[in-house]
């Protein structure tokens, strides 16, 4: 058999084999296997991590901004005295506004 004859013969073998397809159960299991494979690598945190890995500078900046935001927010949340002062001030303002509105009427 030369190369061309092999090609023809191979095509005949393929045609003979193509007369059958996997049965319904196998097709179903293949579809399930495909869904499982795709679900395990869906675009999620994995892709964001890959993106960050490819851009280390952006990752450093994002981390810095996050850290700065936390540092700014932290003292406010962790100082109850200051929040008490704010509460007193708010109370005073509300009282004043109410008093003025009553006196107007």
């Amino acid at each position, binding site marked *: *058999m030369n190369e061309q004859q092999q090609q023809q013969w*191979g*095509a005949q073998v393929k045609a003979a084999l193509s007369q*059958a397809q996997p049965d319904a159960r*196998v097709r179903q*299991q293949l579809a399930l*296997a495909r869904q499982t494979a795709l679900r395990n690598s869906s*675009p999620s945190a994995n892709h964001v991590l890959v*993106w960050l890995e490819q851009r280390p500078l952006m990752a450093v900046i*994002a981390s810095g901004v996050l850290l700065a935001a936390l540092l700014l927010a932290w003292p406010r949340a962790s100082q109850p005295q200051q929040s008490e002062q704010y509460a007193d001030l708010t109370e005073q303002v509300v009282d004043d506004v109410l008093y003025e509105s009553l006196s107007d009427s």
Partner: protein
Amino acid sequence: MQLGLGQVDWLWLRAKGKMDDLAQFLAQVEQRAWRQAWVAVREREAALDIVQDAMLKLSTHYADKPAAEWPLLFQRILQNTIRDYQRRSKVRHFWVSLFSSFGSGSSSDDEPDDPLEYIADSSFSGGDVEQIASSQQRMALIEQGLAQLPARQREAFMLRYWEEMDVAETAQVMGCSEGSVKTHCSRACHSLAKWLAERGVSL
């Protein structure tokens, strides 16, 4: 920061689109891939495991690659997975046969179940059962013939004629030279033709 989040959103959408493309690609190739694995290992469940493994590897490690590269990558992964399975099963068979020689000695050469459905051909008018049966028998013999070929010959034959890859692509998937692919294909064709002729099968 807003721009960064936008980029992440865009990236997520792009990745999702790519996953849709990948799902479509896998749906196109899965049945042919299963058939390749089935011919190589002759076990329904093992063939399914091999295909699932190959799909998982492709989607985990190579989903970011251009879609044009997926067919060759998938074939390469599939062939490697088949080879790994065969290597493992060879070791397992050795130990099983060693220990089973002490056992009852039940026959292990049972015919595998046939997980294939015959496609009704319009040329078989009136459902010529005899013709269908003989075609099924011929197909089973071709599969048996392919299964008894040496692994590299079968791999080359399936990639060249079942997957219709050219010599260069086949060489890339098999990790060998184009000359080797031609040699493997030639030997596979001769061996298979001879094996089939001995059993009275003509194509």
